[in-house]
């Protein structure tokens, strides 16, 4: 097992360096002088220009620049935002809980609905329920989520006034020492209605972000279950006279879970990409909105740092999924 973890780790390192190289190259690939571009129409004084050239190290050779950058990255120094003047690292981890909370809720939403739906569809293969469910799943999978978000806002916020349109909580609530996880903060503060407000803000973004993973999980669970249900050991279990719920729910589902877990792991990248759109539409103060805003503000140190940190997050999750996969399925470890 240790050997397996180490070999996975060995492939992790070159990818990490490559990812660093891409985010390093990003500012340098911009057409024109990046400092002038960042300054935009306001222009920039000569002292400030010289200061920034020194700060980015543009006066040194490229290899030295990259080495300095890599050293900075490993020490958690990703430069400072051009707009807020705060360190990029601090900004990222201040906003990350918002994205994490939303992504976790979306994932839970997708798993809680998608797994049983896939199992029921597989058990009732070819029947009306199966067909209706799989058509719905394909629609969900094809959904332009930015449009789906607008539709939900029109119906639930505009017509029914059930949910707020944007933000994470009503402005009347204030938490002195927030962790950034709004549900936890709301409960911990003990203020009346705070939790309710947080949940109401969370529901539409959760549905929007969870729609595609939900569809993917339902489809994948169904096909994995269908494959497993054809196996001999299932027939044996049935022949032994075990109740169908036990055969389907325990014998079959356990083995069907392996490909499903992979899909869940792979959805993390999808979630982060989806978070860009979802957060922008719902003004959700997380990483996705921060990145989009920074691109528009030409706040390139933020774009650079955010790009790197997001990729590293995805890599870490994929690494964990790989390890988990090895734990669940010993055959993989031997390869």
């Amino acid at each position, binding site marked *: 097992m240790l050997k397996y973890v180490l070999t996975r780790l060995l492939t992790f390192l070159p990818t990490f360096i490559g990812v660093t190289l*891409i985010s390093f190259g990003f500012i340098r690939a911009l057409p024109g002088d990046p400092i002038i571009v960042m300054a935009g129409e306001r222009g920039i004084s000569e002292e400030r220009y010289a200061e920034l050239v020194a700060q980015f190290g543009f006066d040194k050779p490229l290899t030295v620049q990259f080495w300095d950058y890599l050293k900075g990255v490993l020490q958690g120094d990703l430069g400072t935002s051009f707009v807020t003047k705060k360190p990029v690292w601090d900004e990222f981890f201040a906003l990350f809980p918002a994205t994490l909370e939303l992504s976790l809720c979306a994932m839970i939403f997708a798993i809680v609905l998608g797994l049983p739906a896939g199992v029921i569809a597989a058990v009732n293969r070819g029947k009306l329920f199966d067909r209706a469910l799989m058509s719905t799943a394909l*629609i969900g999978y*094809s959904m*332009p989520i*930015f449009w789906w978000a607008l*539709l939900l806002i029109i119906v639930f916020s505009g017509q029914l006034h059930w949910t707020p349109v944007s933000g994470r909580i009503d402005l009347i609530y204030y938490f002195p020492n927030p962790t950034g996880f709004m549900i936890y903060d709301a409960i911990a503060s003990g203020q009346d209605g705070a939790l309710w407000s947080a949940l109401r803000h969370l529901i539409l973004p959760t549905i929007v972000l969870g729609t595609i993973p939900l569809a993917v999980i339902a489809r994948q669970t169904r096909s994995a279950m269908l494959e497993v249900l054809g196996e001999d050991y299932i027939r044996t279990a049935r022949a032994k006279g075990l109740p169908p719920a036990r055969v389907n729910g325990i014998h079959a589902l356990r083995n069907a879970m392996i490909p499903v877990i992979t899909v869940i792991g792979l959805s993390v990248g999808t979630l982060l990409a989806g978070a860009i*759109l979802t957060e922008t539409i719902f003004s959700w103060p997380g990483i996705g909105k921060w990145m989009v805003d920074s691109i528009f503000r030409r706040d390139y140190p933020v774009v650079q740092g955010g790009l790197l940190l997001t*990729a590293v997050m995805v890599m870490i999750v994929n690494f964990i999924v790989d390890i988990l996969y090895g734990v669940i399925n010993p055959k993989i470890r031997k390869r």
Partner: protein
Amino acid sequence: MIDLAQSPARPSALAEFWFYFRENRGAVIGLWVFGAFLLIALLAPWIAPHDPTMQYREHILQPPVWQDGGSWAFPLGTDPVGRDMLSRLMVGARFSFFVGIVVVAVASTGGIIIGLLSGFMPRWLDTIIIRLMDIILAFPSLLLALVLVAVLGPSLVNAMIAIAIVLQPHYVRLTRASVLAERQKDYVTSARVAGAGTLRLMFVTVLPNCMAPIIVQAALSFSTAILDAAALGFLNMGAQPPTPEWGTMLAESREFIQRAWWVVTFPGIAILVTVLAINLMGDGLRDALDPKLKRS
């Protein structure tokens, strides 16, 4: 000489494909819808009732024909500056298909060539290529596309380049995996023994036998390309106004969602129906081309 392909015992590959494809009713529906959209995209300049950029200032935000205040002059209503929705949607179909075709062509050609190289070249080169693809795949696709567009400057062409770059690693991995599986087989060995060069082995011997999963991937990435281009348009990073691209149309009309449902609803339906039709076809293609799933 007797042409074996014509003997009644064995139907042609196309006929066999159609036989399996037809079994999947959803796929056939998808094909029809796709065909209809393709027709609209091709004929848009001639069948669109109005010029898509013409602003009818006296008909701003006119509702669709079946609602009070609607008229047959603008069957699906008009947008906030008085342009005909139907005409814009029809012309928008052209952009979506253009995006889909160009992205799939660029990403698959690049990906197939790199994947073939990776499968045939020495181990170290293969490792480098796979690592490079892993690096691209480590970034969430839409984020990488956004940043690439930020570097290249927002436009539809740059959005297409960015999406093609982001989608291309999937083709590399798919091609490489099938090449590695095919290379072990006897027919490749015998072709090599018969004196076929590496290039011939790559493109003539092995590639045709790797095409099935690649074709399915092409169908799926066609829809991904349309979705991503619309998403970039929606974030003002794709086609620029007044281009009637569906995502850009949605972005322009966002502030009117409470007042005029049609300016938001129709472009979204257009994206959804197109993507859905292509995904339905993709499912059918997979059933028809993947021998493992064939019910004999």
